[in-house]
Structures are given as structure tokens and as C-alpha cells.
């Protein structure tokens, strides 16, 4: 499905090349390539501080890269001529700490962008919001406030909020890291469904088991560089680099 916002057929949906990001003197990303084809699920793994989060945040320009290029659907994300708000409709993002708006209900959270960004009328926005809440299994929680929901439910609302704009790609920054173990499963099952439906996803996460079962490609980042990249079977079973091996040894799952 071609949405009006993006350019014609692009071979990669997300094409990030040589991305660099420095904060003052410290260089967090030192030239990273991330290529994502439509329908792919790409996993980013690596120790904290390796730049996974920063990379994702560069991909919707929440962070401004200090070097490199990023194209989404063929359009240059970093060009000053690009309407970033329009681009962000095509790029969904889910955060580790959910970041739901506490002063709005679940329905309100999902509907806000529909009303203000997509300019939908109130009834239409509500309908679309309800659909997306149903998609993540929370149709009955539409009128609940975030404070009344469990962590897993909040994250699912956050996913619905990202889905509601009908994005072409979703970026997930440690979606389950802030959850109690027993709630992780509910979120992962939503992500599995999303994958089945053909959504393009980039996930930074420690959920190795999930990566093994669902990812098309795994990238191991360390100290701002991609150390190794490949299919999950290769990375997890036969890691080539010593740093990769060390990391996998130390991380459970």
C-alpha cells in the first residue's frame, strides 16, 4: 500500500547510511548503516550505551545526526526542506517508558494525533482509535486513564497510539525493558501479530528469545558501531566476532 506521504517504490523502506551522532566531545554513533526492507523486522542488540536508542531516535529525527544520511521511503529525512511532522506520520515510535499522556484517557491518547495531525473529525478519530485499541486487545479500556492501567497495558496503548496513524514503519525502543516479567508476554504477543500483518519494524531490545523467533535480521551494536549483522540463526548460534560472543554470553535468554 502506497501512502501519499512517501515517494514511489524505494528498495529500502529505511535507508540509514554512515549515521554519526556526537554530544559535545563524546561520539555515541560512529558511522552506522541500517537498511530495512518493507515487511522486515530488524532487531538491534548491544550493551547499554552502544547507541541503539540514539540510532532509533535519529530515524525519526528526535535526535539530529551529526553526520550521515537517512532516507525513509526514498525521502531524505534530514533535509531542511522535508516536512518532518508529515514524515513522522509514516514513522511510528514506541518508547521504553511508554510516555502516555496522563491527563487523557487511553482513547484520548490514541486519538490526539488523529484529530490534530490528520485533522479527522471527533467521531471519526474516536472510531479509528477504538479500532486500534481493539487491535492491541484493549477495546474495553478505552475510557481508562494511564494511571489505572498496568505497565503492559500502557505499553499496548502506546503501540495503538503509534499504529493509529497507519505508519509504514514502527521503531520500538526497548519496548519491554520497563515491564515486570509477567507483563512482557502480552506486549510481545501484540508485536508478533504486528509482524504477521506485515508491518515493518525496527526493535532495540534485550528479548533475545523473541529476536530468535521473529527477527529477519539482527544487528549487534557496540560503542557506536555495528560489530556484526546477519540472520538471527547466524548471530545467536555462530557469532563471528569476539565482542558479540562476549555480549551473548553475558545476557540471559
Amino acid at each position, binding site marked *: 500500500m502506497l501512502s501519499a506521504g512517501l515517494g514511489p517504490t524505494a528498495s529500502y523502506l529505511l535507508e540509514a547510511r554512515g549515521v554519526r551522532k556526537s554530544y559535545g566531545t563524546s561520539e555515541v554513533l560512529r558511522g552506522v548503516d541500517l537498511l530495512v526492507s518493507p515487511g522486515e523486522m530488524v532487531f538491534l542488540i548491544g550493551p547499554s550505551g552502544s547507541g541503539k536508542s540514539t540510532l532509533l531516535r535519529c530515524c525519526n529525527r528526535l535526535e539530529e545526526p551529526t553526520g550521515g544520511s537517512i532516507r525513509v521511503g526514498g525521502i531524505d529525512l534530514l533535509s531542511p526542506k522535508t516536512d518532518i511532522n508529515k514524515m513522522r506520520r509514516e514513522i511510528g515510535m514506541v518508547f521504553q*517508558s511508554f510516555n502516555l499522556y*496522563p*491527563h487523557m484517557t487511553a482513547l484520548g491518547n490514541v486519538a490526539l494525533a488523529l484529530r490534530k495531525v490528520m485533522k479527522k473529525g471527533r467521531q471519526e478519530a474516536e472510531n479509528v482509535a477504538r479500532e486500534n485499541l481493539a487491535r492491541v486487545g484493549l477495546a474495553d479500556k478505552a475510557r481508562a486513564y494511564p*494511571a489505572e492501567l498496568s505497565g503492559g497495558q500502557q505499553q499496548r496503548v502506546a503501540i495503538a497510539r503509534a499504529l493509529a496513524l497507519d505508519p509504514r514503519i514502527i521503531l520500538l525502543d526497548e519496548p519491554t525493558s520497563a515491564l515486570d516479567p509477567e507483563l512482557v508476554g502480552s506486549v510481545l504477543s501484540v508485536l508478533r501479530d504486528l509482524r504477521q500483518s506485515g508491518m515493518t519494524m525496527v526493535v532495540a531490545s534485550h528479548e533475545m528469545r523473541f529476536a530468535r523467533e521473529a527477527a529477519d535480521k539482527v544487528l549487534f551494536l557496540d560503542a557506536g558501531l555495528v560489530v556484526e549483522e546477519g540472520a538471527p540463526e547466524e548471530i545467536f548460534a555462530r557469532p563471528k566476532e569476539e565482542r558479540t560472543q562476549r555480549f551473548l554470553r553475558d545476557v540471559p535468554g
Partner: protein
Amino acid sequence: MTMLDRFAATFLDLDVAARYAPEMLAGLLVTLAIGLAVIVTGVGVGLALAVLRAFGFRALDFVLIQIVDILRALPPLVIILIIYFGLPNVGIVIPSFVVLWMSLSAVLAAFSEELFWAGITAIPTGQWLAARASGLGFFQTLRYVILPQAVRIALPPLTSRTISITKNTALGSAIGVNEILGQAISAEAFSANATPLAMAAALYVLLFLPLVIASRSLEHRYRAGRRGWTR
């Protein structure tokens, strides 16, 4: 004369400034003296009252809260005028600077009691338990464990509140206290020039600006993260 010239002639007349400089400086000393006195008594009494509340006598607590709320609700000028005009008529004569000091101290005591109390109650009961369990008495616990922490919590809002209340020393001019504004008003009348007012403004700003800036940085450093909806 251009607007700028007129402004300079009105507010920046150096001759007038030189002539009344001694009076203005005398006023500055009065402001400083009364200000410091208000701070010492106001904060001191406030702290004492907060400690009193720590004893936990319900009746005392109730009475104290009512008095404190009344002092927080009444405009200071009303308090000053009532004492200044009323007491002489019942035979009690108090010099006006004492009236000023009493009124402002009472108001500051009320506000600082609230802030100290908020600081004390912010300390987890675990602190009390640990201290008492180690053998410290009630007063020792208060003095060595609770109050140091409570005061640190209360300090940022307390500084800003103290500054607000001490600025009210300017109200003394309404009852004849020769502090900065009082001196400026009479100098202005005598010289038919507004330069003394500009001097008064400059003196006040010079006096309080450093305190305001200091209180801002205090508030930055100790901003208690107890607000906000997200966990």
C-alpha cells in the same frame, strides 16, 4: 526636550542625588536593620512553632493552623495599620519601626512555620524509627536527624518567601518609618524631583537582586521531584 532628556532630568539628576545621598543611605541602613530583624524573628519563631507541632498535641495543632492561616490570608498593610493606629488609642504606644517589625515577623513566622512543617513531614518515618531505635531521645532525634534534613528541604521556598516578605519593609513608609522608600518620598517632595525615587529603586534592586538570583539557583538544585503524574 526629548523624551530621553526629560527622563534624565526627572530621574537621573546628579545634583539631587548627591544632596540626598546621605538620607538615602540612612534609609538603606534602616531597611537592612529591620529586614534582618524580621528574618531572624520570623524564621526563628516559625521554626519553633514547627517544632512545637512535632509534639503532636491535637488541640495545639488545630489552634496553630487557624492562626497561621489567618496570618497568611491577611494583607500585611492591614495588620500594620490596625496595630499602628489602634494601639495608641488604648494607651499602648509603640514606635512605628517596631510595629513594622512585629507585623512582618508575624507574617513571616506563619509562612515559614508551614514550610518547615512541610519539610519535617516530608521525612520518612523510617528516619525517626532508626534514630529512636539507636537510643536517641526525641529532642536529639529532632536536632541531629530530622531538622537538618527538613531545613534543607524547606530552604528554597523559604528563601523566596522571605524575600517577598522582607520587600514589604517598604510599607513602613506608610507609617512614617525612615526606611529607603520613606526617605525617598520626603526627598522627592522637598526637591520637587523624582531622582530620589530612582535612587530608592536602585537601592532595593541592588539589595534584593543577588538574593533573588541566589534563591533561584537554590530552587534549581533542590527541586523536590515529588510533582508530576508519571512515575
